[in-house]
């Protein structure tokens, strides 16, 4: 029997709640009076507090309680939301995250400082204009009826309610606070000891409640779990005031609000952990640890290799039944691979959404006005790509804002809007995803780039460089200087590291920049890293794989044409000269060339070269295996794969080969 660790479950839930809270706070900045967003943030904080207390994160619960109380005041209209309050709660959220990661961490001073700021932000220090008029009577809770009403409630919480942080006893306590209650537990669904999942909930309840509170007060008790629970409420009767049930003097506050208003006391308050994002679809989704997906991917990879061997055996056999089975296995493994790929794909919005907070913080730090826009957030990319792209993108966005965007006054002087614009976009193009970071700032100063490059010896004074070559210099190691690094962009990840990370993902970086108008950096990354479609070729006696996504076309290179090139190694392709590399020479095969060699034209972005091979064998589903540590320094190959006959084929590093080809072209041009 597999049982999830409740603490880990809470940490996962907390991560979702943090996303919900942060998203709500950042959305709130666009419209500080948006009641839906205020409610969403409040609910997130409330749930976090309750769940934290439930799972023993007392420090988190106590700290979150203060933030929740502050937002409760906003919710009730006692205080208006402000950018300062949002900034305070965002900072407080970072502290909450630390308390989730390190429940016993010694950071009470930081907590106290943040709470003092929070207090000031909600008007404790008389912040200008933060106090607003009380809510209109029409918006106030409905006054209690003069007659008590008896309600029959029957409810069953979702089975994972306790594991998700809901404390059923807290809900029952809240019902008791509404009036006189008779609560009967129904234990009929409790299984035997060997069948029970200790964290699951099996008990349901029937409640007879006599109260002066309106029906809405009962609904409020279940407000956080309403979407996922079974709840029946029937009105039994309305009666005159009855003994033992005190008619309230003041309008009723919903029970959920009461829990908030009681300071500290409700460490075990109702603790629903229902993220709104679930929208009642929880039962349709299964949460699977990422490493299990990786394991499954490995197995599928092995299956593809085994299937490849089977196909080869079947191909050389006369047994028709074996061939039929082989074809079935090939089809099924292909379908399995495609299904597996889909499982690993996650929308790029998961990557983009974290930049909202980053941009918010940077805007406050730099005094710049920034509008962050997204395009193509639903584009899906392999989860590993998403994980590995996070840091490089953070650096690129920081650079855009730090070095690219101007201060508001500078922008006005340049005839631009006060607010700078940063666009993060993603789109799929064939087997690649193209992620672009575009800003409308001052653009890259080419004179400064050249001066720094010359000063650091990256280029010789006066050396002729094409514009793209000049711009690519910013990705050279050591290009950044201490004078250029600020506390924003100088956090240890240089542009060279960004480039290396992208290239490790078999991606490329394109850069465009127009002085005074802005810059655009595009990352072209393969959609997936685990299995690729490749073109299997033979060079000498060895087989090699060229990623199919990079292949533009294949041509024949006759012996005469090869001789005619006289070492210039250019092929004329529709009125343009394309340099080519003879892989036979590059790999020193020591074999004679085939009479009819082939040129495989490959490209990344605008750059393309031809690769001369002896034979094109055909397409090949390639399970990528990493090179061993012994081959760590080998740059021509990005990995290896196992062919159907058990032999190994090296996978060509397209980016490296294109760079070699371009350098060769530049040398030949320089030589005249």
């Amino acid at each position, binding site marked *: 029997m597999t*049982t999830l660790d*409740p*603490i880990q479950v809470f940490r996962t839930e907390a991560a979702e709640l943090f996303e919900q809270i942060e998203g709500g706070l950042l959305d709130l900045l666009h419209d500080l009076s948006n009641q839906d967003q205020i409610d969403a943030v409040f609910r997130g904080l409330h749930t976090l507090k309750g769940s934290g207390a*439930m*799972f*023993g994160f007392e420090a988190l619960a106590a700290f979150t309680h203060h933030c929740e109380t502050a937002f409760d005041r906003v919710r009730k209209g006692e205080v208006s939301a402000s950018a300062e309050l949002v900034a305070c709660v965002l900072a407080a959220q970072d502290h909450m995250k630390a308390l989730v990661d390190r429940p016993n961490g010694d950071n009470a001073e930081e907590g106290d400082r943040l709470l003092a700021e929070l207090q000031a932000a909600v008007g404790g220090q008389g912040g200008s204009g933060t106090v607003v008029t009380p809510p209109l009577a029409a918006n106030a809770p409905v006054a209690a009826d003069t007659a008590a009403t008896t309600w029959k409630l029957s409810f069953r919480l979702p089975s994972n309610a*306790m*594991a998700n942080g809901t*404390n*059923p*006893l807290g809900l*029952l*306590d809240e019902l008791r606070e509404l009036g006189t209650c*008779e*609560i*009967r*537990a*129904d*234990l009929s669904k*409790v*299984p*035997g*000891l*060997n*069948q*029970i999942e*200790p*964290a699951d*909930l*099996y*008990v349901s*309840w029937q*409640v007879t409640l006599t109260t002066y509170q309106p029906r809405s007060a009962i609904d409020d008790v279940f407000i956080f779990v309403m979407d996922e629970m079974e709840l029946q409420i029937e009105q039994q009767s309305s009666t005159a005031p009855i003994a033992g049930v005190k008619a309230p003097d003041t309008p009723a506050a919903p029970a959920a609000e009461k829990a908030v208003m009681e300071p500290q006391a409700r460490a*075990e308050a109702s603790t629903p952990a229902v993220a709104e994002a679930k929208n009642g679809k929880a039962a349709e989704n299964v949460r699977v640890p990422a490493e299990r997906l990786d394991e499954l991917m490995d197995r599928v990879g092995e299956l593809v290799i085994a299937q490849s061997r089977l196909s080869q055996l079947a191909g050389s056999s006369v047994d028709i039944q074996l061939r039929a089975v082989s074809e079935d296995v090939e089809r099924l493994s292909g379908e399995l691979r495609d299904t597996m790929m889909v499982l690993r794909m996650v929308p790029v919005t998961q990557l983009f959404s974290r930049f909202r907070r980053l941009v918010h913080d940077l805007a406050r730090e730099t005094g710049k006005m920034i509008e962050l826009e997204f395009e193509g957030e639903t584009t899906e990319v392999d989860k590993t790509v998403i994980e590995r792209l996070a840091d490089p993108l953070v650096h690129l966005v920081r650079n855009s804002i730090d070095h690219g965007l101007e201060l508001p006054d500078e922008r006005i002087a340049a005839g631009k809007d006060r607010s700078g614009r940063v666009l993060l976009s993603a789109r799929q193009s064939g087997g690649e995803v193209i992620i672009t970071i575009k800003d409308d700032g001052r653009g890259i100063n080419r004179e400064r780039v050249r001066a720094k490059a010359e000063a650091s010896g990256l280029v010789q004074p006066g050396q002729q460089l094409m514009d793209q070559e000049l711009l690519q210099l910013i990705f050279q190691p050591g290009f950044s200087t201490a004078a250029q690094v600020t506390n924003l962009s100088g956090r240890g990840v240089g542009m060279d590291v960004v480039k290396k990370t992208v290239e490790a993902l078999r991606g490329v970086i394109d850069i465009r920049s127009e002085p005074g108008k802005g810059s655009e950096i595009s990352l072209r990354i393969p959609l997936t890293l685990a299995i690729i479609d490749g073109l299997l070729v033979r060079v000498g006696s060895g087989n090699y794989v060229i990623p199919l996504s990079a292949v533009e076309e294949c041509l024949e290179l006759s012996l005469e044409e090869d001789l005619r090139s006289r070492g210039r190694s250019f092929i004329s392709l529709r009125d343009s000269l394309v340099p080519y590399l003879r892989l036979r020479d590059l790999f020193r095969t020591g074999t004679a060339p085939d009479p009819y060699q082939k040129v495989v034209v490959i490209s990344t972005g605008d750059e393309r070269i031809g690769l001369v091979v002896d034979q094109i064998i055909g397409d090949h589903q390639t399970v990528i295996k990493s090179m061993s540590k012994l081959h760590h320094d080998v740059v021509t190959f990005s990995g290896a794969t196992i062919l159907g006959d058990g032999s190994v084929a090296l996978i060509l590093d397209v980016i490296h080969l294109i760079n070699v080809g371009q350098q060769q072209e530049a040398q030949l041009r320089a030589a005249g």
Partner: protein
Amino acid sequence: MSDPQTIQPHGTVLPPSLSIRNATTVRDLLQAAFESTDPVMLSVPDDADIDLSFLQLVEAARRHAELNGRAFGLQKPAMGNLLSTLERAGFITAMTPRDREFWLHRKEQQ
């Protein structure tokens, strides 16, 4: 069959944390007790941290005992946190005479 009136000198002493944080451990402990002792008598600390998950586990253990013809009970009637949790959870209201005998050690005239 359970016979809570048969007080054993050494019951299965439960840890002070009997909440969901510890629910799996408690379940394992109960299973181990059924494998190693007969009758199984639980000793619940008066000041134990108890929530609904523990009540469910004890109910599950009662079903297990009943099904397997094993004796199972509490060393002493519910009191302190255990009693208040039973009340909060609505168990007391719903108790049958047999439940009362098990949890509260109250034998009632049928």
